[in-house]
């Protein structure tokens, strides 16, 4: 991560207008022959993946690397792609869940490619203030992660997709490869367990298993 003067974050330079007009599904179909189609998909969804990875790791620095790994892993598993109403984002977030879960192995697998990528730039008028803000974010995210630490992994995944990434139930179902009813019941259980956690006191006093859990 390095810094560049602020002010450029919203500017879109001229790119292939035809590619921009295509749906994710159409772009994905072209990625085999046309590398710019893959670049356009990255352009569209990089920030959503970046923020999702941050919420999973509480580290902006890790999220930057994982964002690239998610796209490399998506390409490696391209025959498994699942689209939701022509959007590839739910599947990318599902890939992100898996990449974060197997972080060390994923990073090892793609290390050589990661080293060939350009350094990521962050726009900031005041780099020092920006660095401090990022540290505050990370501390806050660690507190949130501690608060949800008693939920099962499946509940945490639904929480991250439906509440934080704002996917609807159907999109989350595609991402997780489960029926819509399961998404709803997991989210309902997550709410219930969080309520119980608040009533029973600070995390750690009433530990629950962090993985597993039965589905609806």
């Amino acid at each position, binding site marked *: *991560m*390095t*810094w560049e003067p602020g002010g450029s974050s919203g500017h879109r330079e001229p790119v292939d207008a035809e590619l921009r007009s295509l749906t994710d599904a159409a772009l994905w179909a072209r990625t085999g022959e046309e590398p710019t189609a893959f670049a356009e998909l990255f*352009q569209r969804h990089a920030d959503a993946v970046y923020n999702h990875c941050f919420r999973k790791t509480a580290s902006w*620095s890790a999220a930057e690397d994982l964002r690239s790994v998610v*796209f490399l892993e998506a390409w*490696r598993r391209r025959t498994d792609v699942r689209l939701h109403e022509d959007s590839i984002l739910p599947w990318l977030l599902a890939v992100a869940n898996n990449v974060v879960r197997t972080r060390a192995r994923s990073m090892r697998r793609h290390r050589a490619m990661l080293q060939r990528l350009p350094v*990521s*730039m962050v726009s900031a008028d005041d780099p020092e203030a920006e660095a401090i803000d990022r540290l505050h974010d990370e501390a806050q995210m660690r507190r949130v992660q501690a608060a949800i630490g008693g939920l099962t992994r499946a509940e945490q995944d639904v929480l991250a997709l439906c509440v934080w990434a704002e996917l609807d139930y159907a999109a989350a179902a595609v991402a997780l490869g489960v029926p819509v009813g399961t998404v709803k019941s997991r989210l309902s259980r997550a709410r219930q367990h969080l309520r119980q956690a*608040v009533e029973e006191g600070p995390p750690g006093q009433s530990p629950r298993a962090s993985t597993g859990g039965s589905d609806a």
Partner: protein
Amino acid sequence: MLDDLQVPPLRTTSYSDRARQGQALAQLVSAGPVRRRVTRTAFAVGTASVLVATMGARAAYIAFAPVTDHTVVHCYTAQGTAEKDLGTDTNYQSGAPADAIAACTSLWQAGVLQLGKAQAQPQQGPGPLPQDQPVPALVACTLHGEAAVFPGDPLTCQHLGLPVLKK
């Protein structure tokens, strides 16, 4: 209640940054994976290479090296290059050892970096950052072409197998 869990606000990267990263990724995937085929011969050659490299490591050690990326410095809080030893990354411009050390020194003085603490510590509460927190002796090495500043003396770089940073 779930909605009350305050996650930090979304962050976005610039269009130009996403374009650079996206194009680089697209080129990488279109070029195909780096295939690793380990044959008996390759294994033998590899083993011999490791032996030669191990025996010649002392002679091959590069004492000084400049950085190739003049914009980022890694500020470590322990004498190691593992993720747990990294305090934070920050920016500097010149590529000079003194500037790399100065960039990390300001974070030590502000209490953002603390010895042996893997994660940089955010400021507690409002108000200006302190400027009087203890700063250990620091040394600048070169790590993968980038500046890396460690607590320690100039021998620290050698102990870590890294060149000392030179302009």
